[in-house]
C-alpha cells in the first residue's frame, strides 16, 4: 500500500499542492535534501502532463498520485486515465502542436532529472513511476 495517496481534480491549481505533498513525504522518507528540488519538479511535470491529458480528453476522473516509501527507496507514481495510442495503433498524439511540444518537454525534464523512471501507457491510461534512493536515518549512539 502507498504511504500516501493523493487524488485531485484535473485542474492546474492543484498541481502545486501535489508538489508540496510529494516533497514533504519524500523528505520524511529520507530522500536527500539536495534532491528534493528535483522531486518537486519531476512530480510537478508528471502531474501537469496528467492534468493536460485529462483536460484535452474531457476526462472527469481525478489524477492519482501514489507516494510509496520502501526500504532504501522512495517512489512516486502519477497515473492518468487518458487512453493512449497502443503500439502499432493509430498514433494520435491528440491536441494541437503546442500541447504536444509541452508534453514532450515535460517528459524531457523528467528523464533529465530522474535516473530511475518508467513511463507506461495503455488504452485505459498512463503511468509515470519515478524512484529515488533514500538514506536511513543516522543511528543514535548512546
Amino acid at each position, binding site marked *: 500500500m502507498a504511504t500516501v495517496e493523493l487524488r485531485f481534480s484535473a485542474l*492546474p491549481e492543484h498541481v*502545486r499542492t501535489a*508538489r508540496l505533498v510529494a516533497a514533504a513525504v519524500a523528505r520524511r522518507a529520507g530522500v536527500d535534501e539536495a534532491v528534493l528540488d528535483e522531486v518537486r519538479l519531476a512530480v*510537478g511535470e508528471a502531474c501537469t502532463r496528467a492534468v493536460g491529458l485529462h483536460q484535452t480528453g474531457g476526462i472527469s476522473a481525478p489524477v492519482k498520485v501514489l507516494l510509496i516509501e520502501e526500504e532504501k527507496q522512495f517512489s512516486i507514481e502519477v497515473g492518468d486515465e487518458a487512453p493512449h495510442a497502443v503500439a502499432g495503433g493509430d498514433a494520435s498524439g491528440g491536441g494541437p502542436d503546442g500541447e504536444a511540444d509541452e508534453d514532450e518537454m515535460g517528459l*524531457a525534464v523528467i528523464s533529465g532529472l530522474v535516473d530511475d523512471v518508467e513511463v507506461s501507457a495503455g488504452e485505459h491510461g498512463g503511468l509515470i513511476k519515478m524512484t529515488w534512493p533514500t538514506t536511513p536515518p543516522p543511528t543514535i549512539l548512546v
Partner: protein
Amino acid sequence: MDLSLSTETMGDRTIVRVGGEIDVYTAPKLREQLVELVNDGSFHLVVDMEGVDFLDSTGLGVLVGGLKRVRAHEGSLRLVCNQERILKIFRITGLTKVFPIHTSVEEAVAATD
C-alpha cells in the same frame, strides 16, 4: 506562492521582473504579460528571474513563445538568472543555447547581439 510581475523601461529595453512560482497554473499570466508587451511595441525584453522560486516546462514554453514573438519583430529576449536550480532546467532541456542568460539586469541591458 503565487506569481508576481512588474515591468520597467530602461532605454529601448523592457525589464520584466518575475517572482514566485511559474507553473501550469501561473504561466498563463506570464504569457499574457509578454504578449501584451509585444503587442504594445516592446520588442527587446529582459526577463529578470532572480525572484523565481520554481520554474517548470510550462514556464519554459511561455519563455520560448515570448522569444518567438519578439524575434518576429527582430527583437530580443534575455534572461537574468543566477539560481543554480533554475539554470539546471534550462541546461537539461538545451535551452541555454536558445536564451542569452545574464548574471545581472545591468549586464543584460548593456548586451548587444
